[in-house]
């Protein structure tokens, strides 16, 4: 444990970086997924194409995605951020689309019948009703991101993965375990917090 006590600030910085990476990627993914989801949810053709493409993107393993993006984006935080965001986007997109699809026809019809404008219907009726699905998607996206962000250390994204990877390189067991434990704890804490939100 001596290494840990001496390097608390490094560990803290890695943790902070990890959270930042996940948060920023989530935000970026959400900014794309929400409008795109609203746009395609009621257009069957687009919907199939966009969801199919994003499902494909999501099933590409993290390391493969990074390997393919490095030649295009280079190394570093920004590249990692973009890669991670493109990883979380499909999850959020699917959640938005299924959430919007789940809104009962009768409810949408009633909203139209009472004279809600399309925008009012979206914000006051459809999105609130899609919220449970969006939260479920958020939970999956966060778990995916915490995990993928660990690997992002490999392309210079920083975060807790740095401890694991350098630890593996140096055969430094304590460093590996600290990194692995913290990243697991982060994943579980985020999951518990989001589950609470889902129930509320």
């Amino acid at each position: 444990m001596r290494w840990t006590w001496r390097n608390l600030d490094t560990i803290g910085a890695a943790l902070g970086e990890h959270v930042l990476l996940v948060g920023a990627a989530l935000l970026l993914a959400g900014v794309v997924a929400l409008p795109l989801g609203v746009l395609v949810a009621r257009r069957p053709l687009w919907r199939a194409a966009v969801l199919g493409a994003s499902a494909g993107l999501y099933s590409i393993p993290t390391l493969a995605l990074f390997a393919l993006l490095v030649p295009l984006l280079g190394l570093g935080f920004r590249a990692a951020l973009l890669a991670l965001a493109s990883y979380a986007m499909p999850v959020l997109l699917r959640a938005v689309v299924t959430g919007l699809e789940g809104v009962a026809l009768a409810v949408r019809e009633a909203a139209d019948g009472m004279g809600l404008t399309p925008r009012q219907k979206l914000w006051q009726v459809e999105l609130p009703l899609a919220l449970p699905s969006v939260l479920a998607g958020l939970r999956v996206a966060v778990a995916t991101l915490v995990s993928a962000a660990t690997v992002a250390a490999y392309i210079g994204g920083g975060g807790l993965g740095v401890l694991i990877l350098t630890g593996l390189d140096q055969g430094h067991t304590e460093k590996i375990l600290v990194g692995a434990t913290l990243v697991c704890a982060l994943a579980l804490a985020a999951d518990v917090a989001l589950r609470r939100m889902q129930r509320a």
Partner: protein
Amino acid sequence: MIELRGVTKAWPGGAGVQALDLSVPEGECCALIGPSGCGKTTTLRLVNRLVEPDAGSIRIGGADALKQDPVHLRRGIGYVIQEGGLFPHRRIGANVATVPALLGWNAARTRARVEEVLTLVGLDPARYRDRWPHQLSGGERQRVGVARALAADPPVLLLDEPFGAVDPLRRAQLQAEVLSLLKHLRKTVLLVTHDVQEAVRLGDSVALMRGGRLVQHAAPAEMLAHPADGFVAEFLGADRALTRLGLFRIRDVPRDAATVAGEALPEATTLRDALSAMLERGVRAVPVTEGGALTLEAVLRSR
């Protein structure tokens, strides 16, 4: 008040509504009946432009509905859909307050109005206002749907089987109450129902549709006495003459001065019930509480 001229809407699969002419004068209730899939719901949705007609004109209160902004138009038309369509994420009070909120009413006025319309449909505001839709029975939900349609006091109401899920006894009572209230408020109502008895009891006129066309539109007694064709006669039922008697009361026909034995019936009794009493007692005349007697001949002459 509501005036459809040559309104046509073809669905891709066929069916729809064809060259429909229908007008409902201000303050009257028109009951729309017909077999399932004949276009009743489509007709209602044409009126508030949830469906755009392929051809024809629609005027509401003298104005061309097809030239108005549909959103604005709909805020002035109460609409109760067949399946209820309450917003599951809003409490009953908020559901009812939807249109007042859209129209920008202040909180106090909205609140008072919510209480008023909930009471109107027979739901105690104190008990129901803060509940969620899923905590209500199907019949209660439908009543909330009606309250929600009434909330902003629209002059026109479209009711699509508004009380289909309420038990028959309560439904008859509720519909009678709500309809007489709408009449009192001089609302113009287009009411869809599956039940002939209901249609003739509640409608100032009855419109019978079949396969997207209007087959007959007439006052209930007129339609029952003179069905336009065999289909109408069959739809109204073999007991249509009895149904028709249900529309008249003892006070509507001349009475005999003779005194007759037996339990007296009040003037407000329908001729149908009076005839039933005669059959039951095996007599040709029954005494009336308010004086005189009702004879079988008088009942027969009423047609």
